């Protein structure tokens, strides 16, 4: 199938460049803000007196802003913006009722901003990665339902029957996440006892597995073939990847609470399905690397492809870690440590945010009909972001193993914390490096716009 590679150069008239640009610009703005909140918070691990004693600047208030902000602000805004580009290209029709999405963008951003303010004020629903106050979850839900309908109608009106793999994942991501947000609206306050944790495990991994993962696949399945002008390697692998994801992901959530009073057999099912996730991960990766065949010589000059392929390498590492992390033997030392934090950073940022960046870097210059302002600055942001996230991952993972093993050996609690404090400095430095990389990227894209206007 070469739909993406072909589609990439057709249907220009169906796009709405100002609208896409607005969504992407806001996505970039959130991308500047929310990871930085994480970097600031990480400083407190070594300098607890920094910004101390003020409620809205405390760790407990800023952490959910960082997590929800990266998921719904940085990643999702870029993703939805890129959908505005991908869907008309693949369907051959304009987005159904696309003008409404100017309003949607305003509502989306105000809702995010409101969520941040309320989280800072302490409105927290107590579900990790689902802390957003209920009114903002409802708005989020309605926004996603609107997009679901809009994309489904658009896809139904498509000009040719075949449905490219990006669109399967797009439909799946939106439909699954609409349902998952219903769980978030009801779950925290209406399921008592240990089952509340079982459901929460489900929710939190649905966010990752049924929103961020398929959303990321939408992007790479479109932008990788488009960027390297090659057809996708194997249609059959796409099928295996999609259905194995759909089949195994719903069962993994409880691996967040192994060895808890949740039934052992339920934990075992979660472990087995977590291992089975190797199937979708490795098949899609084979598809991505295969798509590069014959184009590797262009790779150094192709910034979107660099982000996509390196993001895929990090995905291979992060997901392999994720699967073995679900094993009881591995959890004994590593659960509750930064090993897990390392995993969530390499996957959410190292893979999915990086893929979203790739899509943005691909789309932005094309919207302006101008090349990227500076290839050198682009390289700098690429290396700062990639070296930053990779080093952060290595350090957090190692440190998690060290602390876990030392606690298993009976080390006193504070002794175990004191030993890992130097590593936390590395995390802060790498995080700041990533921030600089993102800032350079944004400067680069702004300059691209300006250069076009001058010309």
């Amino acid at each position: 199938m070469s739909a993406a590679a072909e589609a990439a150069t057709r249907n220009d008239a169906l796009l709405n460049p100002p609208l896409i640009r607005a969504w992407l610009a806001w996505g970039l703005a959130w991308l500047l803000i929310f990871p930085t909140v994480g970097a600031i918070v990480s400083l407190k691990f070594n300098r607890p007196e920094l910004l101390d004693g003020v409620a809205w600047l405390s760790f407990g208030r800023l952490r959910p802003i960082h997590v929800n902000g990266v998921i719904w602000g940085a990643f999702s805004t870029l993703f939805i913006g890129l959908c505005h580009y991908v869907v008309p290209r693949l369907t051959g029709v304009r987005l159904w009722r696309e003008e409404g999405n100017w309003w949607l963008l305003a509502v989306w951003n105000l809702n995010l901003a409101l969520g941040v303010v309320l989280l800072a004020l302490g409105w927290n629903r107590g579900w990790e990665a689902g802390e957003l106050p209920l009114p903002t979850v409802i708005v989020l839900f309605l926004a996603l339902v609107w997009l679901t309908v809009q994309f489904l109608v658009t896809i139904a009106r498509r000009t040719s029957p075949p449905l490219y793999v990006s669109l399967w994942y797009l439909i799946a991501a939106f439909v699954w996440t609409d349902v998952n947000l219903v769980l978030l609206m009801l779950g925290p306050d209406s399921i008592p006892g240990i089952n509340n944790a079982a459901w929460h495990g489900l929710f939190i991994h649905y966010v990752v597995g049924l929103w961020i993962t398929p959303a990321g696949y939408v992007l790479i399945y479109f932008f990788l073939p488009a960027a390297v002008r090659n057809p996708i390697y194997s249609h059959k692998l796409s099928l295996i990847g999609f259905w194995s994801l759909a089949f195994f992901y719903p069962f993994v959530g409880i691996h967040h609470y192994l060895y808890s009073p949740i039934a052992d057999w339920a934990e075992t099912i979660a472990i087995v399905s977590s291992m089975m996730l190797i199937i979708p991960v490795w098949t899609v990766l084979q598809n991505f690397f295969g798509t590069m065949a014959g184009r590797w010589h262009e790779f150094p000059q192709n910034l979107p492809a660099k982000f996509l392929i390196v993001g895929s390498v990090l995905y291979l590492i992060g997901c392999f870690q994720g699967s073995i992390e679900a094993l009881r033997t591995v959890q004994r030392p590593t659960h509750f440590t930064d090993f897990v934090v390392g995993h969530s950073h390499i996957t959410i940022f190292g893979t999915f945010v990086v893929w979203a960046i790739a899509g943005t870097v691909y789309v932005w210059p094309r919207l302006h009909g101008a090349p990227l302002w500076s290839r050198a600055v682009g390289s700098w942001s690429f290396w700062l972001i990639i070296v930053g996230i990779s080093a952060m991952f290595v350090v957090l993972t190692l440190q998690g193993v060290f602390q876990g093993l030392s606690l298993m050996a009976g080390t006193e609690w504070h002794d175990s914390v004191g030993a890992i404090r130097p590593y936390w400095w590395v995390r802060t430095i790498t995080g700041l490096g990533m921030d600089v990389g993102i800032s350079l990227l944004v400067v680069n894209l702004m300059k691209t716009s300006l250069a076009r206007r001058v010309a």
Partner: protein
Amino acid sequence: MQGVLPTLVPESRTREVTRAVRTELGGVTWVRHPTSDYTPLERLGREVYIRDGCWYCHSQYVRPVAGEAARWGPVSEAGEYAWDQPHLLSTRRIGPDLSRVGLKYADDWHYAHLWNPRLVVPESIMPSFRWLFDVVVVPVHREGETVRLEATPALARYFSMDRSKPVVLFPDESGLTFVAPRPDGALPIDGMPTLDLAHLGGRAPATGALRLVIPGRQTVALVHYLQKLGTSRGIWRDVFEPQNPPVTAIQVADGQEAVARGRAVYERRCIGCHGARGDGNGRAATFLSPRPRDFTTAVFKFRTTPSGTLPTDGDLYRTVTRGVRWTGMPTWHEVPEADRRAVIAYIKTFSPRWREEPRPAAATLPPPPPPTAELLARGRELYRSAKCYECHGDGGKGDGPSAAQLRDDFERPIRPTDFTRGQFKAGAGVADVFRALTLGLDGTPMPSFGDALTDEERWAIAYHVLSLSAWADPLTGEKVPH
């Protein structure tokens, strides 16, 4: 899908847990027992715990692996979470697990720790929760020999200013002064704030004004919630081996090397309360009641040695290891044994008594007789005739007629132990109670009854004292139905 399946299992919806209870005869046994819902105040505290994100760094489940059952306490059971909505299991431990923190510390330790964690744990990385406290700056004036707080309108908002009920405050050198809240967290606090400056040599802090730190209602609620955690498992602590070291005759090496190591341990773990000079004037001391032990006097409550003498090394080791229940002194069982030994060598450098006085041998106490109904009945009688009730109260609640006036040897108010909660500072075995009766608790109004009562009489009282907490909830003192 996978959320549905475990929910279908009835065990996941149980409200029962295994609970350690004391029996009438003084033993400890495990029973299946339903857990109780949170009180409105505890529920409010739980909301604060969620709001301020305590759960991002503190997990609430003890796993059956990785040595956790020896570190935190009994492995978690489903019934413990029956009233939790949302759950707060958490996925990360940047700080310790809290599912067994209830009754590990007294409330006042939590207030010090929430105000500024580094007061009590110098290397802590926890945030300071200042916004949970009211701060009132009040000028002080010297009137003859006494230093008084100016009765500002702000002060009158927080206190009833009833002169017949003095509320004793212990400012620190910087003027920071903790005010213990009412148990329900409401205002005003009933009484007149008065200053005790003995620990500052009678001088008011040079600032000319004191900064009163008063926990708000939400803070009181939060501490109530923390104290509730794990107490549905009853008096598990009394059968938790790591916290219940036996009486031993260990000798601590007190060479220079041990003292240096002990000093390092002390400066990391003890200095916040006991102070750099070992005089009990650490940075957190203003918060704590009873105030931290002053090592310069070398007066110790919990000994196996005769009244008025120095304790053995084993006595100090036992106190350090098990902590002192219902006070700011936590259990230190996690700290390496060599560190615990070394710190004792260092503590002994604070008072010349350790060099000048002979080391008495531990008193040899007889083995306990088996408990019988007759012995218990005898104990109940003796509890009255030996006037235990005067301080500890008829029902053992620590509310006897003279309880309010009690002062320790340092002229500070001291409260008699409430036996009905079963939180025994010197140990929860019948031999521990017998030892306290026999040898007394130095520095406190608790005398030695070694001469006044026979061995048999003291055993009888000891069993009676234990029976007062039979089937009691350690948090509320209320009897659990059985």
